[in-house]
């Protein structure tokens, strides 16, 4: 045997790790996509294909095309709606309504505008979407959250909490005393707070040192102080907003939470906590104190929501107290949703976008310059740079996270990571 042959033989035969079931898993995906691709090829007429497309997309199919057509038709209604008396009433509570036509959606998810990586929860489990648009399913987990810098993902399934790398490689798993939910990784990186049943617990980032912080908590994700200390905000079983030192387990402060509060988030700078319910938004001021370990919970600042409107989701910008929210109005002529921005020092909210139908959750880009908004009604994501209208829309989101499943449910955006 020549030495070149010896090298070739070594390369062919040296044992390498092959993930279990990887060949079959890939075949299922490829066969599904191939079968999907065959369907539109039989279509005689394809009116909505992008002009820039040189070949039929693997993800194009009859249902998304109908959704695209619906999106375009609905978009055309926006100007009419906003000029109507009811539309004028929506304008009455904001000072700058942007209603430019929604751009033609991209048929598939490409590069993420502004960069970063997304964590997306589908019915099959969480996916990591890389900057170039490539995606990876982490496993059949039920909830997921990024570590502070996106090197790991804390995932939950049943009573198991695990830390995995963004490529799915598991690092550790821990069996909690109750069903795990609402896990949140601390900004300083070495603790994860989560709920196990009704209890609020904290575990170290290496899966050790699990402990109970509160015996009863409301089904809302806790919020870590952004100041690098172990202070944790949570809503108690009785509906109070409470601050606790997760190391010493000393209760630091308490105040009534918003009625039916559904979400809390601690603002960058540590001086406010956002509370959101279906009908209201407010910032609860917090005063960190240098000489004493106990911060003061102070007054609340309500953020105006129009009467009758429902808050669908709200999120704080990464480095300031600007709040972005999705609100939905039901009117005689149908549902409309707006993306609204509440900036510090501005008395009135600013509407960035209003569309027919219901919008879903909202996420800030890591640099705070863009928003990603889910539009499940038309199976799209909208990328919205602040102050520059609507940048792009991406269609066929459901199938992007469930290849081959034509009745896939719309996935949920869990996070957009990370500022370095």
């Amino acid at each position, binding site marked *: 045997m020549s030495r070149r042959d010896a090298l*070739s033989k070594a390369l062919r035969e040296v044992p*390498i790790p092959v*993930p279990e079931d990887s060949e079959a898993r890939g075949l299922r995906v*490829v066969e599904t996509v191939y079968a999907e691709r065959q369907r539109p090829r039989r279509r005689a007429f394809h009116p909505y294909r992008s002009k820039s497309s040189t070949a039929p997309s*693997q993800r194009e199919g009859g249902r998304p095309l109908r959704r695209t057509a619906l999106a375009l038709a609905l978009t055309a209604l926006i100007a009419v709606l906003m000029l109507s008396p009811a539309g004028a009433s929506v304008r009455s509570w904001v000072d700058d309504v942007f209603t430019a036509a929604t751009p033609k959606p991209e048929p598939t998810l490409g590069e993420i505008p502004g960069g970063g990586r997304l964590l997306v929860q589908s019915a099959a489990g969480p996916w990591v979407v890389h900057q170039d648009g490539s995606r990876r399913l982490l496993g059949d987990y039920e909830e997921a959250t990024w570590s502070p810098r996106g090197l790991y993902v804390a995932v939950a399934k049943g009573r198991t909490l695990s830390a995995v790398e963004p490529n799915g490689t598991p690092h550790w798993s821990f069996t909690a005393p109750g069903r795990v939910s609402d896990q949140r990784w601390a900004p300083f990186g070495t603790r994860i707070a989560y709920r196990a049943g009704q209890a609020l617990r904290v575990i170290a980032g290496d899966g050790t040192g699990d402990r109970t912080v509160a015996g009863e908590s409301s089904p809302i994700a806790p919020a870590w102080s952004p100041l690098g200390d172990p202070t944790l905000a949570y809503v108690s079983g009785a509906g109070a907003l409470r601050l606790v030192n997760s190391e010493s387990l000393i209760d630091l402060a308490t105040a009534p939470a918003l009625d039916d509060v559904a979400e809390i988030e601690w603002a960058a700078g540590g001086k406010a906590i956002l509370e959101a319910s279906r009908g209201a938004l407010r910032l609860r001021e917090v005063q960190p104190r240098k000489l004493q370990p106990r911060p003061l919970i102070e007054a609340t600042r309500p953020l105006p929501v129009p009467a009758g409107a429902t808050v669908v989701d709200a999120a704080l910008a990464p480095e300031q107290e600007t709040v972005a929210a999705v609100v939905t109005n039901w009117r005689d002529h149908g549902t409309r949703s707006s993306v609204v921005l509440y900036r510090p020092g501005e008395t009135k909210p600013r509407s960035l976008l209003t569309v027919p139908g219901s919008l879903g959750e909202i996420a800030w880009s890591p640099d705070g310059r863009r928003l990603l908004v889910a539009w499940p009604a038309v199976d799209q994501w909208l990328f919205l740079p602040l102050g520059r209208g609507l940048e792009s829309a991406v269609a066929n989101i459901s199938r992007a996270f469930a290849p081959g499943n034509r009745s896939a449910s719309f996935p949920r955006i869990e996070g957009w990571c990370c500022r370095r």
Partner: protein
Amino acid sequence: MAELYSLHWRRAYRAAYLVVHDAAAAEDIAQDAFLAAVDALDRFDRRRPFAPWLHRIVVNRALDWARREALRRQVDSAESVFEPLPPPEEVGSEMIAALKELPAEQRAVVVLRHLLEYTPGEIASMLDLPRGTVNSRLRRGLDRLRETAELDAVGEERR
């Protein structure tokens, strides 16, 4: 499609792994390459062999991944969320370890030449490189591999 996949997946995966040295990434790359091939079937001249077309996609994606990963490791080196677990038991032989020490660009040409058995001219076309660059990367790669005991004689053949 299943037949085509079964015929080519193992080599595609192995080529990707030997460039990126990450099983999960290699799985993704092999799968993505097949999906890209499916997406471009209309443009593919079916009189030509499928394997070189697929391997071109695999190795280029593997190179892209390896470059991104190298950059990410530089950027992320400061983060220490928790102590990483020790790496799994080293798989394979000194061969894998020696190959892993090569720059990704050299790994790619070594894999294309000695695993997938393309000529330097074909490799140049696949990677969109001058042939001289392919030859120099091969030479450097093999010189470094030769330093390992197991492959000591590999470079001598070329002399």
